């Protein structure tokens, strides 16, 4: 579905990523793993066409036969609006603190796909119910909910929108172990029920083992290893991957 070829990003003469190659197959969960500062988030920004203005970028990011890097701002905006949904690290920062959840959930889901508020209410109620959230949350402000609940609200929007691609940028790092597991189960459910393609960015190998089908290991701005999770786990080639696998609990 998305092919990244030879992606190099430069900011003020510094190489953020170099010759990055990997693919995100349709309907699968692909994981991009690497330590902090390895260029994961910048790579994702490049996919979304959201790099800082002073970034110089070369290579290809092919999405449905088009190179995203050449696309105009309007084209990118419509891709971001219609096809992609992004979940960030800390959901408590992803919501506007002075607006009630209901309006924000609508803005993130119903409004994007062009539903009226009534359709939204009906559909969202079902989804929240499935995810174990009471309908009351729509009357509350973000700071009245816990991090785990907010992250579930986020994924509720993803369930609603059913995006072609869901990008989850370290979605679990602000959650405790129990909530992490719950959240990963939800991602898997989204993938299985709605066949959503997911790009899961993380530094946690356990999450990769639990959820992902494919993985790409990133170190210091380059991809050092790609493959299915089984093959990489059973037969790692690169020294960094081996070290990563050894450092698991």
């Amino acid at each position, binding site marked *: 579905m998305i092919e990244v070829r030879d992606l190099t990003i430069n900011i003020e003469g510094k190489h953020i990523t170099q010759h990055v190659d990997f693919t995100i197959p349709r309907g699968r969960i692909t994981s991009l793993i690497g330590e902090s500062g390895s260029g994961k988030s910048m790579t994702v920004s490049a996919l979304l066409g959201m790099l800082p203005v002073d970034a110089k970028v070369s290579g290809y990011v092919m999405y449905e036969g088009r190179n995203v890097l050449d696309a105009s701002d309007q084209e990118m905006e419509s891709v971001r609006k219609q096809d992609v949904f992004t979940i*960030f690290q*800390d959901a408590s920062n992803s919501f*506007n603190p002075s*607006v009630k959840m209901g309006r924000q959930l609508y*803005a993130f889901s119903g409004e994007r796909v062009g539903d009226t508020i009534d359709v939204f209410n009906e559909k969202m109620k079902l989804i929240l119910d499935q995810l174990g959230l009471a309908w009351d949350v729509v009357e509350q*402000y973000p700071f009245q909910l816990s991090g785990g609940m907010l992250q579930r609200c986020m994924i509720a929007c993803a369930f609603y929108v059913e995006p072609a691609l869901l990008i989850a940028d370290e979605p679990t790092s602000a959650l405790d172990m129990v909530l992490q597991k719950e959240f990963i189960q939800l991602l898997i459910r989204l993938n299985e029920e709605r066949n959503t393609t997911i790009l899961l960015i993380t530094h946690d190998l356990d999450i990769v083992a639990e959820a992902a089908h494919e993985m790409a290991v990133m170190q210091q701005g380059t991809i050092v290893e790609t493959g299915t999770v089984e093959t990489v786990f059973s037969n790692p080639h690169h020294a960094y991957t081996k070290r990563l696998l050894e450092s698991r609990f």
Partner: protein
Amino acid sequence: MKSRKALLFWCSLLGLIVFLTVFSNMLAPFSPNEMNMDDVYSAPSSDHWLGTDHLGRDVLSRLLEGGKVTLAVASGSVILSLIIGIVYGGISGYFGGLTDTVMMRLLEALITIPALIIILSFQAIIQGGMWGMTLLIGLTGWLVTARIVRSEFIRLKEEEFVKMANMFGTPVWKILWGHLLQNSIPAIFVVTLFNFAGAIFMEVSLSFLGIGIPPAIPSWGNMLYYAQNDILIGAWWIALFPGIMIFLTILSINFIGEAWKNPKRRRVND
């Protein structure tokens, strides 16, 4: 809890002052400009609670009516400076880069000139009345507001929820209004309160110097100006009561502002 009670006290005091001045028409026992030459410089008594001045006008009535003028000038100028400050600071903070640099250098240049001097010189030229004063105080009072709005916008712009809204293609005006401005309200509120106190002080100072509100209109500053001579002949009540009102008003506004400055009251604070 202690600070809560204190806040409540200062709020009610300010509320009382505002109430008294706003309804001065009904509450004042005499007309503020009604002269009575048989009854000049009479000390506070049951007839005239706060005494009368050199023209036999009732001090209490003038105090209430004058408060209305002073507070109206202060409110008008604060609203004006708030609007200018938000627009200026908002543009500077949101767009950043060269725009921001140029706008901020200009602001710094303006901030170095004391507002009182600018107002003095303009007032000398235009000889403005009440609304002229409001305009002048408003036009010189927005600098700090603009700075605060700018720094809030710069901070909030980097927050994830703003980036998220950007990514979903939320229109710029919606981000400016709903995400940036709405979350800057606590900070803007505090700086506006202090501005309000400053504007009252400015009106009082100018009127006291005799270049503010025209003499026909009573204001707290005007009353103090005319009381200068009266004190010499022992009519202390003419100066004391406006002084107390000014003191209490500015004090309560400052205390309310201090209480609101407390970051615990904010929702986004990092």
